[in-house]
């Protein structure tokens, strides 16, 4: 069964800290991994795309690494507006069908 797990489930860093979260996956076929963030009451918004083990991507204060069966996401100098739920999603089909994890809920303390 395809599945994605997140760690930790909840993160509460102080403003200015580095927030670190990760996901691990077990899928029948790996095509790519995406990171999304979701604010309450809204649809997920795409952050980063990852393609193969060892792949690293930086975008602003976001930094992600793709490992053999997972991915890590770091957010540097977190701000209150970074508070959201962060999901990774794995394409297990090669046809844009994604399985999402349960996410890491980030709440930045001012």
């Amino acid at each position, binding site marked *: 069964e395809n599945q*994605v797990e997140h760690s930790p489930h909840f993160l509460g860093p102080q403003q200015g800290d580095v927030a670190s979260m990760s996901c691990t996956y077990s899928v029948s076929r790996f095509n*790519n991994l*995406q990171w999304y963030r979701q604010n309450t*009451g*809204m*649809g*997920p*918004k*795409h952050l980063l*795309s990852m393609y193969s083990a060892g792949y690293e991507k930086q975008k602003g204060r976001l930094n992600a690494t793709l490992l053999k069966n997972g991915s890590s996401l770091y957010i540097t100098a977190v701000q209150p507006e970074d508070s959201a739920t962060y*999901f990774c*999603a794995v*394409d297990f089909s090669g*046809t*844009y*069908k*994604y*399985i*999402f*994890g*349960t*996410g890491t809920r980030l709440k930045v303390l001012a």
Partner: protein
Amino acid sequence: SAVISQKPSRDICQRGTSLTIQCQVDSQVTMMFWYRQQPGQSLTLIATANQGSEATYESGFVIDKFPISRPNLTFSTLTVSNMSPEDSSIYLCSVEPLAGSSYEQYFGPGTRLTVT
């Protein structure tokens, strides 16, 4: 980028009734997807809706319960039929990545459904 709207944004429905959710995209796309997100949970793919063909349903979801229409390249509907309280969820549509967008999927804002 693609802009996606959904109607209604939320609804409260009685058990046994049906609700049709609309998804409108501001550009033509081949593939549209419908997801369900139960409160505090992850997104689960219901089906893929391609224009001109029958929707493809994922394991655990059937056409009789979740009929889907895809009349053109910018619009799709999902109907939640014969609703029960277990159908209370957020329903989201998304569209395939745009050419050259690195697999980025765009999501609508969601429809929050409460079944009483």
